[in-house]
């Protein structure tokens, strides 16, 4: 066989081999009793943005694309989902205490305002997830409004 054929076969063999390396893919759970949108009244258009632009990495309701099952891309996808859920998991929203919710709401606003979220690599593969200026404003405003329900400026109970 020619050199290139040998190398090609080896690479192909490696590619097949890595598909069988066992690793833990983040689980998918569609029904979550502590989910933000399930428990609270979140305005329809905001909920829609959250689902489309955030929920794949920041909830248990992940929908894996076909390439999410193919190594080595699957490793990257799984890592992103794991990290995303670690920082913020909307499916477990009600488990957070109020102070942590306040922190998260601040972070959500900051991350969408500075363009860090959703991740650009994600938007590349999911163009519908891109946040327009209006979407970003909507999310930021929602974090303020939602936070306002949790706290009162009246501190007479001090």
């Amino acid at each position, binding site marked *: 066989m020619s050199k290139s054929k040998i190398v090609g076969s080896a690479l192909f063999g490696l590619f097949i081999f890595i598909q069988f390396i066992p690793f833990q893919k983040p689980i998918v759970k569609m029904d979550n009793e502590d989910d933000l949108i399930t428990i609270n009244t979140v305005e329809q258009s905001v909920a829609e943005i959250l689902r489309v632009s955030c929920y794949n990495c920041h909830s248990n309701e992940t929908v894996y694309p076909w390439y999410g099952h193919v190594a080595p891309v699957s490793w990257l996808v799984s890592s992103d989902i794991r990290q995303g859920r670690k920082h913020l998991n909307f499916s477990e929203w009600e488990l957070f205490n*109020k*102070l*942590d919710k*306040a*922190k*998260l*709401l*601040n*972070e959500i606003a*900051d991350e969408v305002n*500075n363009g860090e979220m959703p991740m650009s690599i994600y938007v590349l593969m999911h163009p519908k997830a891109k946040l327009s200026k209006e979407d970003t404003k909507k999310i930021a405003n929602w*974090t*303020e409004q*939602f*936070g*306002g*329900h*949790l*706290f*009162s*400026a*009246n*501190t*007479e*109970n*001090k």
Partner: protein
Amino acid sequence: MKNFKLFIPLVTLLAVFMLSFEMPGDGNKNVSSSAQGFVVPDNVQKVIDQSCFACHNMDAKNDKAKSALLFDALDTLKVAKLVGKLADIRDEVKDDKMPPAKFLQFNPEVKLSVAQKDLLINWADSTAKSYIK
């Protein structure tokens, strides 16, 4: 009018008299959703001035620090945002993330003592909790 000369001073006196009373709603901070009247106790402010303010104020040069937290703007924040910032302060101090180790290398005198850490943590935590509905 015969008594006109007395009229203006009397009205002025009455106005001053009425204004000296606290009007209803003055003590109620719930007029808007911003944390008006947010005040930091002196002993806490002292620690903040020593170990935090240099980077976390509006005139500082450190953009990252400024975008994360401004101590001189806390009283302009909406309540929910303020609570989140207070919780951040609590956690960053608790985890020894702030002041940053690199900064302390060159400014060891601003390192927080255990007592100062406890003071900041307890103040941030209890103040944040005081706003919970």
